[in-house]
Every structure is written in C-alpha cells, then in structure tokens.
C-alpha cells in the first residue's frame, strides 16, 4: 500500500491486545514515552474471543491511573482495526501523534533522563552521610 505514517511511533508486536497488561502500559510511561496507543482487532472479531475487549477495559483503568499520577488520561488510547486495514493504521498513527504533540512532552521525561545518567534517588544522601 506504500502508506506513510509518522516515524516517531514505535511498534511493539504482541500476539493479541489481551496480552497488554496494565503494568506493561505503565512501564512504557515510566521509560519516558509521551503516549501509548493500542491497536486491537475489530470488536467481536478477536481470535481469542475477548482479548481486545479486555484490553479496552484495561486502557480505561490505566486512564484513571494516569489522571491520578498527573500525566493525563489523554496520553493513552485504544483503536480497533483489522489486519487488512493498513489505511486505518496510518490514520491512527497520525491521529495519536497529533493528539500527543498537542499535549507536549511527558512531564516525566526530565526525571527519566536524570535516572539514566545521574545517581539513583536516595544515593546522594547516603554519600553525604558517609562524609
């Protein structure tokens, strides 16, 4: 189809969206991503019967958690499409990218970077105590 979609979308393959656990979605945010979207099969057409419906419920739950931690529920979304709907996939990629871009970078980005480079939290105090 030679369709274009934004290059800043990283695709993580899973056998079914039913595999996507709450923790998996939260860990993505902890690693510093700006947003997450799930691309599940069309509702009622899950090979495993209810995988995509379960994923939708979990996304709704994660939305609440994201509001709680102050990242905002809009940073996660679930879309449905069949394997033959490449056009719809590209549309989703553009749609979510625009939405997340409007929200700006994740507020935890600075923290995620500091974590990668600097000392682990709590270590400074330990060093000071030893002096």
């Amino acid at each position: 189809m030679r369709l274009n979609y934004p290059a800043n979308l990283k695709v993580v393959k899973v056998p079914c969206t039913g595999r996507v656990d709450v923790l998996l979605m939260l860990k993505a945010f902890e690693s510093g991503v700006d947003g997450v979207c799930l691309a599940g099969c069309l509702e009622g057409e899950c090979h495993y019967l209810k995988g995509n419906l379960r994923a939708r419920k979990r996304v709704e739950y994660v939305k609440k958690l994201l509001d709680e931690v102050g990242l905002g529920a809009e940073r996660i979304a679930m879309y449905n499409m069949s394997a033959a709907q490449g056009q719809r996939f590209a549309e989703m990629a553009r749609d979510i990218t625009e939405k997340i871009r409007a929200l700006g970078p994740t507020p935890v980005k600075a923290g995620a970077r500091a974590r990668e480079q600097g000392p682990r939290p709590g270590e400074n105090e330990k060093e000071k105590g030893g002096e």
Partner: protein
Amino acid sequence: MIVGDRKPLEEILEMIKSYKKILLLGCNECVTVCAAGGEREVGVLATELNLVRMKDGPGIEIKEHTLERQCDYEYIDQIRPFVEEYEAILSMACGAGVQYVAEHFAQKPVIPAVNTTFLGVTIEQGVWSERCQGCGECVLERTGGICPIARCAKSLLNGPCGGSSQGKCEVDREVDCGWQLIIDRLTGLDLLDRYDEVVAVKDWKTARDGGPRRRVREDLRL
C-alpha cells in the same frame, strides 16, 4: 480470604512524602487473590509512585519484593538482610501483615498501602463479597449455611427485620436480605422448623467484644 482495597494514591503519597528509598512489600496470599497487594499490584504501585516523583527529578528508589505471607515470621525474616538499606517499608498486605512486619523491625516505619475490608469470597473475576465476621462462635448449622452475623446488616439472630423488602435490605437495594436468604435456603432444605426456634442472646465475648483474641495449641508448640 481477607479482602482489601488499595488506598488512594494521594493518601499513599502523603504518607511517604519524606522518604526517598522505600521497600514496597507485597503479600502472595489473600491480597494477591483479591488483586489488592500481590506482586502485580506492587509493580503497578511502584510505577505510579515513580511517575509522580519523576515529574520533579529522578524519582524514588523502590525495591519491589513480595513475600509468601506477611503474617508468618519465617517469611518476614527473609527481608532482614536488606531492610536496613531502606528508609521505610510500604506494605501491601492486610492489617495483620502490616502489623506483624512492624513488630519485627522496631526502628523501621511501616506504612499501610491497603485498606483491609472483610473476610469474603470471589463472586466472579473482579467481584468479592463479605461472608464472615470472625465472631468466634459459628451459627451456620442453624441458619442453613448462611451467616446472619455477616449477611444481615444488623447481625440479627432472629430476623428478618422490617427493613427487608422483596428480598433486599433497606441499607442498599442491591444487597440481599440475609434472613430472606436463610429462609429460602431452609425452605429448600425442608428444614424450615429451625426457623421457629428462637435463638438466645449471643455471647459476644468470643467476638471482638472480649478484647484481642489469641489461639494456642499446646501440642503444636515447640
């Protein structure tokens, strides 16, 4: 099992606001089954706490650890080698677990992350319901296996009261009247004559009214 409910994140954040290194301790028993404080919930809470703290800097150092049980000293001893490295323990066990961990580490603040709610059963995946209040003197034989203490809002032993309407309780229209359930079950068992017996006043000394309870089996003691 003991059923619990995770405390709201805001409340947990307030309790741990002065700490930078915490040990987040889950429990593999009841709170795992009711999805309140098992290994998975430990992971979710650790990530949530991190996301909140990472907005202001490098976050919080959390060691995630889940014990087989927090209500047995053999398992609690497993955290002894590394517990000193952390400023506080945030426990996701029931109230019994939180207290028993605290008893073992006198110098370590132990904070609860779960509200312990009731002794109950799994109705379906994601739904739990109260069944027992641990009154210390079981009356289930007389009531067809349905507990009037736990299932009746007033814990009546000779019910129902006037608040029972169309099989539901007046405190909540979604709650079954415990006594309606008892009568239906006794009818089904053809044991309704038991309903005619007036139950004497219950001795609540065996329940909480007699003070904190303790059970000793001398033959098992070492």
